[in-house]
């Protein structure tokens, strides 16, 4: 104690204050930080508080110990299976969205006539709500839809193919709504890769598959990982299409639906919160795995300007 007293600054209070604020400013702490305040408040009020409240609620079931809601969820196969049902929808849909975006974005990164129009066509599904997409799918792929009329009419099948009100209906819906996000992100990642790198590889004797595999893909991979995470999160929280074009009682009873039913059909808020927490944990787990893989990749400059 006495040591600290001896070591106080010899100069009295006056000139010490500007020195302190200067030192803080050098570490990026100054009054402009106040601009962060609205965002911090927003996050605190609309994310941190509801999350904390839900977490607390999940450990406070109406009867039983603090873990009773989780126990109820995991002990009931009908509930537990929703994890696999949701993963079974979200993982393939996100993967397909990312993989389908790569060749299209790869072809579209240069300048060509009609690029804007094509981009608009590819991106328009973003503006359509899930409900509108579901409506369209029901009309198009339903038993009396154009697609099945054509299939039956051409004699490719004896009876209409079941493509809605089951797994495939939800899967198509996820692809239609998720693809534009993945495509736009990957297009911007690809545009950031300097095209002279591929030209250099060409002059060194690499054909286009080698150029793609050895140059473009490694530089794009971190972007693919990020895009996959976002596409996955988007697909994982599927809810309306699971009800509208899926089979909500069976094969497309996803986590979000289970949580909804717990909350608004059984009025068990604790179980609903527990399901929401499980949902979050599964998402974080998948993202952690992907980002762990991403951290092992080269993630520096890709030579592009800007």
């Amino acid at each position: 104690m006495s040591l600290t007293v001896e070591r106080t600054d010899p100069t009295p209070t006056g000139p010490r204050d500007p020195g302190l604020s200067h030192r803080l400013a050098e570490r990026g702490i100054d009054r402009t930080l106040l601009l962060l305040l609205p965002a911090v408040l927003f996050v605190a009020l609309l994310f941190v508080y509801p999350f904390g409240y839900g977490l607390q609620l999940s450990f406070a079931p109406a009867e039983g110990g603090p873990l009773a809601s989780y126990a109820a969820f995991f002990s009931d196969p009908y509930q537990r299976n929703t994890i696999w049902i949701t993963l079974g929808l979200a993982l393939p849909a996100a993967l397909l969205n990312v993989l389908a975006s790569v060749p299209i974005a790869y072809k579209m990164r240069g300048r060509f006539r009609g690029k804007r129009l094509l981009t608009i066509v590819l991106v328009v599904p973003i503006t359509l709500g899930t409900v509108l997409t579901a409506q369209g799918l029901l009309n198009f792929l339903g038993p009396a839809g154009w697609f099945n009329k054509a299939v039956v009419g051409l004699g490719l099948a004896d009876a209409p193919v079941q493509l809605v009100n089951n797994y495939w209906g939800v899967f198509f819906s996820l692809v239609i709504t998720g693809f534009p996000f993945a495509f736009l992100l990957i297009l911007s990642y690809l545009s950031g890769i300097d095209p002279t790198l591929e030209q250099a590889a060409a002059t060194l004797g690499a054909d286009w598959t080698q150029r793609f595999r050895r140059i473009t893909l490694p530089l794009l991979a971190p972007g693919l990982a990020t895009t996959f995470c976002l596409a996955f999160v988007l697909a994982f929280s599927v809810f309306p299409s699971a009800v509208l074009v899926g089979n909500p009682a069976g094969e497309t009873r996803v986590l979000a639906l289970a949580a909804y039913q717990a909350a608004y059909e059984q009025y068990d808020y604790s179980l609903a919160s527990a399901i929401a927490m499980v949902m979050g944990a599964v998402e974080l787990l998948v993202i952690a795995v992907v980002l762990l893989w991403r951290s092992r990749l080269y993630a520096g400059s890709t030579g592009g300007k800007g």
Partner: protein
Amino acid sequence: MSSAGAAPPGRFGELRLDGVGRRFAGKDALVELDLTIRAGEFIALLGPSGCGKSTALNCLAGLLPLTTGSIWQDERRIDTLPAEKRGFGMVFQSYALFPHMSVRRNIAFGLQMRKLPRAEVRRRTEEGVRLVQLEEHADKLPGQLSGGQQQRVAIARAVVLEPSLVLMDEPLSNLDAKLRLEMRTEIRRLHQSLGLTTVYVTHDQEEALSLADRLVVLRHGRVQQVGTPEQLHARPVNWHVADFMGFRNLMELEAAHVSGTGVDAEVAVRGEGLTLLGTATAAVSAGDRVVAAVRPEDVLVVEDAGGDNRIAATVEVVEYQGRELAVEVRTAAGRALHLRTERRLAPGDEVALTVERERLLVYPLAPGEQAPAPLVDAVTT
């Protein structure tokens, strides 16, 4: 050095560009380029930006399809081959090093693409690393290297394949002045030791003169002149080339009197209150509009104001350049002239200048052709 006799596979005796042209969106970027490149030669494509030199290089590399013409490697037509089948090495202005690969892997890339045995890839990669003296940095990523080191990696990556032709697109333009000089020597040294046929694109006439065996000067996509450094330095074919080759003093005058005919005739030119004797570079007759061109180092300061080829002028700007001064003077008619001198001149000094008859080149000016640098600023000062 490569000789025509025991040429390794892929080597050629000569590479012929036959009427090569390229249009972008209806605009000619390169027109009718005819050029024969002999094995072992160092060719510089020289010209201001937008003259088509990079277009020509990209056409040669196979990165741009030709609009017209053809390219022949001896008797084999190669302009239809994609870049990866031509076996030319290229050094890019931005270096275009693969950012996710170490120096060693960058240099090995082309060898691996050729499917060479692993031991040979390793041996030749190490040779390449040693050639550009980057042994200490071989495991670093390009982002960890300085500009000059990145440039050396780019050169090693291109030459390690022993390509039949090396293409260089302004490789030194991103380096600072000191490094540029060092790398220039290095490129010349590499060319001398490996004897690789090289096509080098630059807008820097000094770089082109010091490196190349032959220069091709381009302007607006058209070849202006092909020749050795000496030819281009001493006798540019037209005043555009002269302007580009360092003839900073270009005066639009009138031919007053011609003694002799055709090239090398003695021409008296007149205008702006001056009468000067010069050498015709093409047929000139009395009364023609001409451009008289002279290098700053050929404008001499003399003591006596009397005599032939005298110009009276006032010193305006003096730049210290070590042993010499670069001086801008203005004649009575308001014409700015540039000269270099060892005399310690100061702004405001009245000087008498002279130009030797052989050093003042007289170019005919086509009817309607825009004259170089008309006397616009004479009015404002």
